[in-house]
């Protein structure tokens, strides 16, 4: 008899959790915007003392203040965040997301809100400085999985024989890539210029090579999103000076 009680308790707990979960999912108030982020992308998006903040957050917070909406933020890992937008689980995603052609096929991007450089960083004591890319193949490169670098290497490096995608080491996030860099397991790590500016203050790293003018960041929306057009309108209303002020506040 006791056993049956045990089973009944399990079943009850199960149904309770299922119902509770559905309740959360069904929340579709018109002014609540479901936001997907990856809080491991300083200065664009990060958490400090349990509070989500950053450059991208400020921009979207400004939009929400102007339009009278509230954000329901969910933290995913990088691929989960992109998946959430594609599957329409989230209305918008931002965490320093690069606008790329493959991504454009599955999601819509806002106007670019800032330019971003791509930095190959290495440890200061290794003193690796590349003037040209022809010696790049002598070094191992690592970066976070699901980022735009793979596409870049495939279209820009492989045809010219500079580097091959199957030579790179992939990590779950920048954290692991940088940890491996410090352990000497990988020579260089690809970082966004924004991220590199933060980590240069905390780690003994320097730029070995910087790619400028190839990458622009955008807010990602599901295909056919009406929110995107309104957000673009807000970026226009905000104007380049005020936008630059927000960027400068976080980039210093």
């Amino acid at each position, binding site marked *: 008899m006791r056993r049956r009680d045990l089973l009944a308790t399990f079943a009850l707990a199960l149904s309770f959790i299922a119902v509770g979960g559905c309740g959360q999912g069904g929340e579709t108030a018109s002014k609540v915007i479901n936001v997907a982020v990856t809080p491991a992308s300083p200065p664009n998006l990060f958490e400090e003392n349990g509070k989500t903040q950053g450059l991208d957050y400020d921009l979207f917070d400004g939009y929400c203040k102007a339009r009278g909406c509230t954000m329901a933020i969910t933290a995913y890992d990088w691929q989960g965040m992109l998946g959430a937008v594609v599957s329409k*689980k989230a209305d918008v995603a931002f965490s320093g997301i690069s606008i790329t052609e493959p991504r454009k096929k599955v999601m819509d991007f806002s106007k670019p809100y800032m330019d971003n450089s791509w930095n190959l960083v290495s440890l200061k004591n290794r003193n690796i400085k590349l003037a040209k890319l022809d010696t790049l193949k002598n070094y191992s490169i690592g970066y976070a999985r699901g980022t735009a670098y793979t596409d870049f290497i495939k279209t820009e490096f492989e045809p010219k024989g500079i580097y091959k995608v199957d030579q790179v080491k992939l990590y779950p996030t920048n954290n692991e890539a940088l940890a491996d860099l410090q352990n000497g397991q990988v020579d260089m790590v690809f970082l966004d210029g924004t991220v590199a500016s933060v980590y240069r203050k905390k780690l003994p790293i320097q730029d070995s090579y910087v790619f400028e003018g190839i990458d622009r960041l955008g807010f990602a929306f599901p295909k056919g999103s009406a929110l995107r057009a309104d957000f673009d309108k807000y970026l226009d209303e905000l104007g380049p000076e005020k936008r630059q002020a927000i960027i400068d506040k976080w980039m210093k």
Partner: protein
Amino acid sequence: MSFFDILQILLQGAGYTLLITFSCAATALVVGLGIAMARELGGRWASAVLSALVYVLRGVPMLVLLFIVFFGLPGIGVDVPPLVAMMLSLGLISGAYLSEVFRGALAAVNSNEVLAAQSMGFTRFQTLRLIKIPQMLRFSVPGMINELTTVLKYSPFAYTVGLPEITKQAMALVAMTMRGIEIYAAIGLIYFAIYRLLLGAVRLIEKHYAIPGFAQE
């Protein structure tokens, strides 16, 4: 930031880790028991279908099934909340493994006892309920501990679908502080504590169902 501060921040995610672990473990137990019982009572066809299901579930990687459930199902109009997606992926896969543990334990029940029950006029269901399952549960404790531990260790996948569990807290914290060793050591400790908790719970159940003077202890 001291090690204690780090632990405190990480513990904010512990509730989710526990919730995920226990709801997936509960799903696994229900599914595992269901499959094991249906295999016993159902006919040849039910048994064949369930064997095929278990075969497939044991072969599908956890993350793949999670992606299919969470990001794929909305494509055909079924919206699944994150926790339910975890239960439908981790819970189902783990249930398939548990059903095999239960199958092994059922096979270990002395066939003479079953024969005796049948000669007493027990129905198949009565035999299962009164003779086989009580012994099966006792025999399957070691396998169950293994499987439930696996559920705990797979719980970080929940971060992929947006549940802020311990690993998410750790990654967000490492991104800001770059103190990987301390932070990952701290979550190691927390996972170990939860593992001890699980172990304690199973031990309680084991003790409850133990027959004095019978077998171990």
